[in-house]
């Protein structure tokens, strides 16, 4: 019996492709509690880290985790932070992120993180404790219907009703989360299941008759041949690619395809990093706050090659007029994305990487290599780079004015901070963001060259995502510099995660572009609501000359070094100090609130309505 215990602590997971026979021996040999079975299953799935916050209905699981030698359990300071951290971990590593909470409020706090993973197709498994089965439906203490609560925002979910099902369910959950179009899976485990004992049998295969995440439909080759023909006939093609490039790991194939055919590439916000932005064929990203030239190219294209994208409204604006002169070719792993928002002229259901591999074998550029087209785009590029200027308005912000003490030429523009960071990190850091203006500027002014380096809540647009996601990303990639570029509004939403970073020694850094406002909403107020401020001021109205809150003191309370930067000349040295630090770090950069993110295509409008001034 003791020998068998030995097998448990060194499960077959050590060698990922362990023979099934060896995997099965741990099971029937040793009776285990449900909670231990969960942990054993997680180890078998190769889980290295869990972001878990314990409570009455999940402490059994945490007890079992204390005995795991393979899994690091990180305690976030709020379940939402845990869920975002799991998302950040998954986005940075490509592995399944795992978060865990207790029943009731613990589970409800996870929901934003689960919804974020759903919207951005991120593989996350969320484990929730549930009240004992006998108490379900009795409005028990800390009981919520987690299955029902998360139903609209999961790829799949389970309420474990039989202990014997547990190993199969965990295996299925990880399989469903990471295959096909990835997404979050919830496993709700009642406390009595965690506490009862059985001799588990761990399945080695998954059988789901209703789930077949095949990498492509049978007709892929025929479709690709047709596509190759369209490319040869086209004169003004554009590749429009998204998160599918990143989740399928198709960045190399995409680069090969683009270089071979000489077709310009624009990405979505989710696709940033899927194609090197420093490449001559890169148009950076398109959509509401994308480049003028990317939007111009799509507007004038005769062929749009859409890869792993979903024609989101923030990309298309008025979907009817989007790419109105062009044929649309759409490749996506999820059949339901085809024709959902925009009908495609030619569509194929396939994994982006597989499709590109095959396409690279047959696709050829026409003899002219789109030289005229690329030259026309080049003109647009030269005419409309991202740009900003220091306005009088910016200089006369109350708090900025007071801090600068008549030295207003040295004001810090938010875009400048990001440019400096990009220069200092050589575009090689992992950048996470909150949601708002700083998020758009991060996408605009940092040049991303590798996949999984821009981590942002694109679909859900969840403020507070940045810092916990940076924690998750840093845990996944300790070798990389991980920096959360945040706004003062977003940062405040999960500011408590500084404690997690400090205690767990996770060197996730944060730059707060502090403009004392909810900048993006302010921008909309300025543009569309005559500048009326509807609860968008975050400072202290009784003392608008001072910065509020004092992030120095907050960070100090958490034991995290922090500094405030007011003058432009101090930006670079401060960034250097931050980058040199090997612990968490907060840089509070005071910027004017009057800046607008430009260019901008107002919601529901088309390219002709683009605002550049």
């Amino acid at each position: 019996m003791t020998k068998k215990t030995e097998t448990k602590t060194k499960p077959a997971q050590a060698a990922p492709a362990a023979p099934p026979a060896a995997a099965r021996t741990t099971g029937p040999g040793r009776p285990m509690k449900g909670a231990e079975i969960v942990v054993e299953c997680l180890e078998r799935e190769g889980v290295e880290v869990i972001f878990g916050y314990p409570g009455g209905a999940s402490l059994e699981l945490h007890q079992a985790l204390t005995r795991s030698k393979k899994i690091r359990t990180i305690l976030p300071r709020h379940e939402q932070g845990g869920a975002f951290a799991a998302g950040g971990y998954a986005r940075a590593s490509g592995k399944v992120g795992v978060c865990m909470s207790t029943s009731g409020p613990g589970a409800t706090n996870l929901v934003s993180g689960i919804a974020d993973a759903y919207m951005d197709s991120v593989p996350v498994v969320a484990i929730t404790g549930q009240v004992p089965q006998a108490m379900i439906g009795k409005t028990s203490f800390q009981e919520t219907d987690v299955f029902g609560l998360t139903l609209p925002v999961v790829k799949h979910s389970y309420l474990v009703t039989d202990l014997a099902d547990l190993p199969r369910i965990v295996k299925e959950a990880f399989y469903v989360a990471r295959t096909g179009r990835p997404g979050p899976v919830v496993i709700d485990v009642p406390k009595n299941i965690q506490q009862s004992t059985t001799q588990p049998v761990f399945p080695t295969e998954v059988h789901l008759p209703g789930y077949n995440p095949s990498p492509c439909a049978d007709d892929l080759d025929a479709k690709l041949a047709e596509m190759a023909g369209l490319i040869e006939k086209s004169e003004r093609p554009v590749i429009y690619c998204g998160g599918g490039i990143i989740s399928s790991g198709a960045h190399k194939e995409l680069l090969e395809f683009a270089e071979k055919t000489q077709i310009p590439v624009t990405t979505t916000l989710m696709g940033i990093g899927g194609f090197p932005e420093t490449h001559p064929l890169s148009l950076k990203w398109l959509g509401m706050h994308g480049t003028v030239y990317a939007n111009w190219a799509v507007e004038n294209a005769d062929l749009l090659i859409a890869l792993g994208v979903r024609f989101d409204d923030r990309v298309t604006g008025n979907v009817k007029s989007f790419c109105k002169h062009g044929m649309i070719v759409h490749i996506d792993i999820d059949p339901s994305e085809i024709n959902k928002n925009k009908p495609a002229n030619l569509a194929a259901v396939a994994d982006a990487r597989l499709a590109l591999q095959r396409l690279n074998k047959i696709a050829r550029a026409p003899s002219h290599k789109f030289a005229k087209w690329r030259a026309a785009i080049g003109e647009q590029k030269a005419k409309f780079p991202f740009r900003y200027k220091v306005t009088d308005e910016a200089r006369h912000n109350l708090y900025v004015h007071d801090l600068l003490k008549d030295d207003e030429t040295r004001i810090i523009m938010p875009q400048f901070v990001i440019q400096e960071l990009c220069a200092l990190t050589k575009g090689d850091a992992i950048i996470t963001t909150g949601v708002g203006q700083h998020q758009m500027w991060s996408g605009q002014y940092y040049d991303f060259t590798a996949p999984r380096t821009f981590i942002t809540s694109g679909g859900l647009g969840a403020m507070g995502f940045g810092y916990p996601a940076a924690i998750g990303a840093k845990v996944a990639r300790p070798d990389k510099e991980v920096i959360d570029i945040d706004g003062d509004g977003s940062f405040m939403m999960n500011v408590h995660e500084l404690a997690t970073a400090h205690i767990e020694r996770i060197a996730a850094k944060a730059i707060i572009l502090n403009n004392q406002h909810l900048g993006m909403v302010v921008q909309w107020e300025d543009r569309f609501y005559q500048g009326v401020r509807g609860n968008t001021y975050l400072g202290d109205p009784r003392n608008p000359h001072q910065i509020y809150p004092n992030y120095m003191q907050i960070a100090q309370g958490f034991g995290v070094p922090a500094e405030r930067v007011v003058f432009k000349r101090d930006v670079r040295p401060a960034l250097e100090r931050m980058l040199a630090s090997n612990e968490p770090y907060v840089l509070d950069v005071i910027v004017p609130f009057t800046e607008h993110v430009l260019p901008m295509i107002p919601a529901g409008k088309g390219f002709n309505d683009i605002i550049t001034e």
Partner: protein
Amino acid sequence: MFDWLHFAADRNIARQRALTYKGGLMRHTISVLVENKFGVLARIAELFSGRGYNIDTLNVAPTLDAKLSRMTIVTRGDDATLEQIIKQLNKLVNVVQIQDFREGQYVDRELILLKVKADSKARSEIMQICDIFRAKIVDVQQRELSIEITGTEDKLEKFLQLMDPFGIVDITRTGKVAMPRQTKTAAASEAMGVRSQH
């Protein structure tokens, strides 16, 4: 005597169109084979409500294979909506198979239980109509008759029209159940057979 078959052949085309295109949108009958797993009905109901699709009727019951249930859903929408409904249903892990029935490819029935006001004078007339429609009287009270009737949508609509003047007190309907004329479920059952060995 009224000939139902003749009546059926002679039915008013315009009225049928009105049924088919209820609310200006095409009606569809979808048959969904699902695993008998916890919460599967909730998933499907949520899919329809969360994405703003309509359900006209919904019927669920087990199949020969105790691990599977069949749902018959009557829904409305234009072609693009229907394409999405089917694709979204397909994405649900517990959905094993979906069939979108086209006109003529399937047989369908609905069962109605209804209670009609029937004093001694009206009773015989009601019974006569029931006879014509092959409806059954399943309960008789002093002033009410309970009737069971099965049939296609057209037949039931017509029957209800005829019952209306007597005063329908209560009604309960199963919603449409449908089955393809040619079976396609063999493959799905086989898939489940493989599964049950584990």
